[in-house]
């Protein structure tokens, strides 16, 4: 049995092998395992023999990634010797990034710069140089959650996105291409690029732009990659010009997985909201992929069976694979009278990401989906490194006391004195004195993350929520001066959720806050638990958490999610005591019109400052919190921890 998705993955590998730097690379969604290994092996088999391949761990230091001063060689040679980094070493080949979802935006941006320019610019440690680095990046995305993706700045530049998850390792047959076919295509493509006239791909470009527009792909980079992929596809097929099929394939592999909205149904442009899949009005050739046409027309949000359908991977049931030898797939089977854009759109439908429909039917997700459309690409996991002490220059110091020796700086300090210091007959290569020791100074920034835990329940909650949102935004505006962060946990109904993960981005905060729901019961204990968990994470990252609870203290949903006031209040007290045991700084703002003893008791249990603010508006609230923040920082700040060893 041939798994069509495996075929598709092999097709992507072949396209990449034809034009690696042109397509940028591949984002491969796959856990480590035999399937992934087999795919990488298949890809490397298609590349020219001897193509360099370098693996880059996500936390690679700049000295290894970009290169810098080769100290050993420098001392040996008596003049500065530069050492290439991994990117320069991979010139003309592949860079493989396992666990790409853990890569920091900083590292990803370095990769992105190299992908853009085809060279590594190095301005480090006395070395100023530029090495060629025509590379393609294979990013293995092993993130468990959909939010946990590799940095957008990198994903945008890697043309092909494939998903190997769920492919059985027992059915990994070989693809229709071998190394010689690809080599031929590579040569053909090069000459073909030089000759091809504008008209040749003119229609293809327009069709691809139309499709990108229809499925909400904003960045022009994927479209450019798709044009190149179409050419590579044509070269693989031995064609001298780009055919419909090549464009369809390119769109399916490059644009489809990036879709952020569902394209309108093919024939009836007016009825985008129509719940009925237009089986009847559909042209005959599209009926071969009934699943994808279902997935493509948005069902009513209330219909659970339809959304279930969307959960199943459309490409799994998709018979349109890219096997070029399949006669069904040759251009003949496609109605020639149809505009190219529609043909391509049909092809893309089968490659829409599986979660897209579910996302569109979930009102909360939809909002973020809509926002993502405006800003191109999905809401990426914008990660920031835990700021556990940034390097803050190099100072004269004693490495025996803990700080890391900056060897290059030390030698640089020692070097000018060598002539003076050298004693006749001495065998020492470099005479270093204690005066020369330079150490890396690190500044431990005691940033504070303010975690709002907001009661979003019931009647009075709605205006409270508005105030909390306002306060969060006001604080955030203040915060980024200090590079502090803000998070928001809301609880209502039966659950608590982290609405805004710790962030210092106003853009992001506003987006999350806009979609904050309210109403229902008061699961105070759950709220406190989630808040505590966030505080724990924050503390692990090296920040000091400050918890700000906005509630009237009247819990009525327990940890077991069952209603019942006494039980719920007891649970809440327990949760509050946990905070105290953990020693979290906390502020409890009583939001009820008349202060209730329950809130005060809660504050006492969690060791929080108690602040009754019956008519708090956002500015009062934010100034109260600001006061609390400065209190926290006074207590917890361990500013300028010089001599901290690098973690």
């Amino acid at each position, binding site marked *: 049995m041939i798994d069509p998705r495996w075929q598709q993955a092999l097709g992507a590998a072949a396209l990449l092998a034809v034009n690696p730097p042109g397509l940028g690379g591949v984002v491969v969604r796959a856990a480590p395992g035999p399937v992934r290994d087999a795919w990488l092996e298949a890809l490397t088999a298609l590349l020219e023999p001897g193509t360099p391949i370098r693996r880059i761990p996500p936390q690679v230091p700049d000295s290894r990634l970009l290169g810098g001063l080769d100290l050993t060689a*420098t001392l040996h040679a*008596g003049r500065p010797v530069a050492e290439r980094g991994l990117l320069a070493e991979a010139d003309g080949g592949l860079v493989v990034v396992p666990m790409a979802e853990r890569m920091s935006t900083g590292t990803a941006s370095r990769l992105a710069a190299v992908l*853009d320019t085809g060279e590594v610019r190095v301005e480090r440690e006395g070395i100023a140089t530029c090495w060629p680095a025509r590379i393609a990046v294979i990013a293995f995305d092993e993130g468990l959650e959909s939010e946990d993706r590799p940095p957008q700045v990198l994903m*945008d530049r890697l043309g092909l996105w494939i998903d190997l998850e769920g492919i059985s390792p027992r059915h990994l047959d070989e693809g229709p291409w071998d190394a010689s076919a690809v080599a031929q295509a590579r040569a053909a493509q090069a000459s073909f*690029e030089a000759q091809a006239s504008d008209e040749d791909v003119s229609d293809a470009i327009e069709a691809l732009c139309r499709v990108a527009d229809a499925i909400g792909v904003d960045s022009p980079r994927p479209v450019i990659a798709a044009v190149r992929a179409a050419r590579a596809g044509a070269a693989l097929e031995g064609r001298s010009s780009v055919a419909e099929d090549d464009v369809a394939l390119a769109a399916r592999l490059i644009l489809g997985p990036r879709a952020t909205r569902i394209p309108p149904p093919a024939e009836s442009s007016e009825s985008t909201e129509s719940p009925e899949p237009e089986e009847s009005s559909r042209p005959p050739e599209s009926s071969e992929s009934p699943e994808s046409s279902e997935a493509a027309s948005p069902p009513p949000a209330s219909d659970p069976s339809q959304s279930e359908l969307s959960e199943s991977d459309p490409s799994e049931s998709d018979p349109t694979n890219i096997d070029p030898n399949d006669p069904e797939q040759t251009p003949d089977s496609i109605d020639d009278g149809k505009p190219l854009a529609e043909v391509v759109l049909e092809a893309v439908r089968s490659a829409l990401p599986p979660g897209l429909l579910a996302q569109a039917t979930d009102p909360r997700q939809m909002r973020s989906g809509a926002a993502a459309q405006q800003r191109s690409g999905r809401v990426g996991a914008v990660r920031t490194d835990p700021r556990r002490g940034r390097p803050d220059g190099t100072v004269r110091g004693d490495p025996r006391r803990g700080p890391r020796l900056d060897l290059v700086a030390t030698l640089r300090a020692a070097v000018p004195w060598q002539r003076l210091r050298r004693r006749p007959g001495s065998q020492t290569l470099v005479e270093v004195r204690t005066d020369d020791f330079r150490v890396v100074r690190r500044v431990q920034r005691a940033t504070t993350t303010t975690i709002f835990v907001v009661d979003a329940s019931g009647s009075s909650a709605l205006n409270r929520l508005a105030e909390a949102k306002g306060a969060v935004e006001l604080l955030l505006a203040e915060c*980024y001066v200090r590079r502090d962060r803000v998070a928001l946990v809301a609880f209502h109904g039966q659950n608590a959720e982290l609405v805004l993960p710790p962030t210092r981005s106003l853009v992001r905060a506003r987006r999350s806050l806009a979609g904050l729901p309210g109403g229902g019961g008061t699961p105070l204990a759950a709220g406190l638990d989630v808040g505590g968990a966030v505080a724990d994470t924050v503390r692990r990252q090296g920040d000091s958490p400050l918890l700000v609870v906005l509630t009237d203290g009247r819990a009525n949903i327990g940890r077991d999610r069952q209603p019942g006031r006494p039980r719920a209040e007891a649970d809440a007290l327990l949760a509050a005591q946990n905070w105290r045991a953990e020693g979290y700084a906390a502020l409890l703002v009583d939001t009820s019109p008349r202060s209730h003893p329950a809130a005060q008791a809660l504050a006492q249990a969690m060791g929080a400052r108690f602040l009754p603010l019956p008519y708090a508006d956002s500015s009062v609230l934010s100034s109260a919190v600001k006061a609390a923040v400065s209190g926290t920082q006074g207590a917890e700040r361990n500013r300028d921890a010089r001599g901290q060893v690098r973690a």
Partner: protein
Amino acid sequence: MSLVFPFSAIVGQDEMKRALLLCAVDPRIGGVLVLGDRGTGKSTAVRALAALLPPMNAVVGCPYGCDPKTANPCEQCRAHRAARSGLLKSAKIPVPVVDLPLGATEDRVVGALDLERALTKGEKAFEPGLLGRANRGFLYIDEVNLLEDHLVDVLLDVAASGENVVEREGISVRHPARFVLIGSGNPEEGELRPQLLDRFGLSVEVRTPTELKSRVEVVRRRDAFERDPAGFVEQWRKADAKVRRQIDAGRNQLESVQVPDSALEQGARLCIALGTDGLRGELTLLRTARALAAFEGASQVEDSHLKRIAVSALRHRLRRNPLDESGSDIRVERAMSEVLA
């Protein structure tokens, strides 16, 4: 040097292109911050600008590219001048556009002990860094929001004073470092510190074109450039040359452009209406308007000039009001329609 995408061939993004050109006409505007979506040609525009700029006269052998006529030369040029009674050899060189790559270390940015000479000859000599190289030109930082704080501080300091003072490793050097700072970034990947925002003269926002026609054009031109860079550049050579002449003419005319009192007044009123802090906003507003007038060959600054650059000059200087959902662009435009009605 490999060929770069021609400036005139960039589709749309008029605000960004205008801001860059005006900074080329009058470097005192104080740089451009380009914020916006991925794939909108931020880096392309800056690299294209480099290829577009008319060459400048510089002292031969001067590491900082000093102007032979400058009143404020570097130490080396000053010594040479004294020795040769004021006559220095000069030559036309391209305006430096220096990239500050991510991962650059401080020693390469500000300059440090010349390791090569120290190791081979045992001499203590200063090797200028990127700041020195960018003197009289442009310093470009892609992803400026990812730059490490201590580097940002150094940059701000130097950009403000126009002089780089190095005191390290027993070296004590000061040299001119007047450059136009161009930063780009994506606000979703971390906000900029307000101190940094304010230092940029202009701030422009770029978006992906939404019209199908221009999107198609973007892809088409990119594709054409990649297939035949030389041919494509040749095709746009005339258009680029025209812009270059316009920059040159604008520079020559800059000093003679009149700024009438009415324009000064309008600028002040606009800043008051928007509550921008400090005088920097007003200064930038007028300088930019003057540069625009010069660029377009006008003899004095009119309201129409102010109108077209006010958003770029002011949008990043507004006090943030997070509760006001309307963006800063709208606020500036609202104020403009009131003041410049």
